[in-house]
């Protein structure tokens, strides 16, 4: 006999996609996991809404690029009237990346790429399952009534040194990074960021941040110099390492095995930062599921770096910061809105 408790623990998922093939594949593939149950599928927003009300799913996967369906409007309505963790399924196109980003800003918790040429259904399945598990734990911010005005940028630093800021994030990280980076002054220390996200997405994300921040933000390319006033975002599907040549810091962007199932991985960035920047670095670990970054942050701390973890209350998923705190690699635990100040205090 099946244990009722065991059934209750399954994560209830609703798949919203206009393609019957995708609905079928998702249902079949996801149902292989003992902790996930696809409770329904929907080809359009009206059926989706009915099923959400009736079936009470915990997580929704949503294709926002459907020819006859305005997925973004559906998402916005959902976030207003029936907030639920939504994972966006996005194509590998540039347009797909932009839409997915807008979806994240509208309240979706994460984005996963549709399989493409170099990215198989198998890869996607693993990522999707990990993201569904994280999403099921996600704490949704209350539906946002547009904040009045833009966040107040901080005053310029009087001096910038050879400091380097290294930041790692996963689920919920795009919004957290936006909150932190938009508050950084134009001459902030050179900043390197790993945010777990698909390849098509990092360019759009970097471009979006570039438009919002006082610093320059760009997707990192191999060999880019880490200089004050510039934020480098690791490109999806590549690891990014900090390196040093004389007085110059630069990044190496390269292929390599996934670490904690991630590429880019926060640990790869943090460990290289510990090695090459030592006490000149500040390490920040933000919201996200899993343990990526915890070991790296500890190495940074041991090498003399100051370290910060986002607090539980402001995390969408309190996983990576929790693990980093548990390992003992964290100096300061701070709520999201104070992290930029903490960073500046540490580099000041």
């Amino acid at each position, binding site marked *: 006999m099946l244990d009722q408790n065991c059934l209750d623990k399954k994560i209830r998922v609703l798949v919203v996609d206009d393609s019957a093939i995708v609905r079928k594949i998702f249902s079949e593939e996801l149902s292989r996991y003992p902790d996930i149950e696809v409770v329904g599928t929907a080809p359009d927003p009206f059926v989706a809404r*009915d099923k959400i009300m009736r079936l009470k799913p915990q997580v929704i996967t949503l294709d926002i690029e459907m020819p*006859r369906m305005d997925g973004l*409007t559906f998402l*916005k309505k959902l976030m207003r009237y029936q907030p639920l963790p939504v994972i966006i399924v996005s194509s590998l196109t540039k347009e797909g990346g932009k839409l997915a980003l807008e979806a994240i800003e509208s309240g979706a918790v994460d984005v996963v790429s549709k*399989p493409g040429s170099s990215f198989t*259904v198998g890869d996607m399945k693993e990522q999707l399952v990990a993201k569904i598990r994280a999403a099921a734990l996600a704490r949704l911010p209350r539906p946002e009534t547009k904040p009045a005005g833009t966040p107040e940028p901080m005053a310029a630093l009087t001096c910038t040194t050879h400091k380097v800021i290294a930041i790692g994030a996963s689920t919920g990280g795009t919004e957290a990074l936006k909150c932190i980076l938009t508050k950084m002054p134009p001459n902030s220390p050179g900043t390197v960021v790993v945010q777990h996200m698909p390849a098509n997405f990092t360019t759009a994300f970097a471009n979006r941040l570039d438009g919002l921040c006082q610093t320059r933000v760009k997707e990192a390319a191999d060999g880019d110099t880490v200089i004050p006033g510039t934020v480098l975002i690791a490109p999806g599907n590549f690891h990014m390492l900090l390196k040093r040549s004389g007085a110059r810091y630069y990044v190496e962007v390269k292929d390599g095995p996934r670490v904690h199932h991630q590429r880019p991985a926060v640990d790869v960035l943090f460990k290289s930062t510990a090695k090459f920047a030592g006490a000149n670095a500040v390490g920040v670990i933000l919201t996200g599921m899993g343990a990526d970054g915890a070991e790296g942050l500890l190495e940074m701390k041991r090498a003399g770096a100051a370290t910060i973890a986002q607090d539980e209350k402001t995390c969408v998923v309190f996983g990576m910061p929790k693990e980093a705190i548990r390992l003992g690699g964290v100096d300061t635990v701070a709520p999201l809105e104070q992290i930029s100040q903490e960073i500046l205090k540490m580099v000041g």
Partner: protein
Amino acid sequence: MSFNVLIVDDSSSMRAVIRKIVAISGFKMGRCYEAANGQEALDVLSENWVDVIISDINMPGVSGLDMLDHLKADDLLKEIPVIVVSTEGSDERIRSVMSKGAKRFVRKPFLPEDIRKILYEVIGVDNEGRYCDVQEPPDGGDF
């Protein structure tokens, strides 16, 4: 699939009539909300997911026209199609209503089959209330 309707009219008997006509028309009605004026309508909309609005124009307080202005100013509410029903239907009146963003103007009284057709039309589904004939690309998927 079903659609949530908001009926806005200051006469409760008129709301009941409209509700009844929509119900017997065969329209796939999910929830049906009612409001006696524009303000009540906006209150309903702040809490409830509505797919289509059927509204009178002349109401005490926030009128139908004022409500259209409010809807237009909201990123999400502006997406909801509004059908204005009225007994007075001068060309000028119709023009002003349409220019404020109403999708259709319907003179009272109306027939069930007419209102069903109009409801489906403004929502953007076919005559049977289906969202679309799901068309798979010829290669068998959009992967």
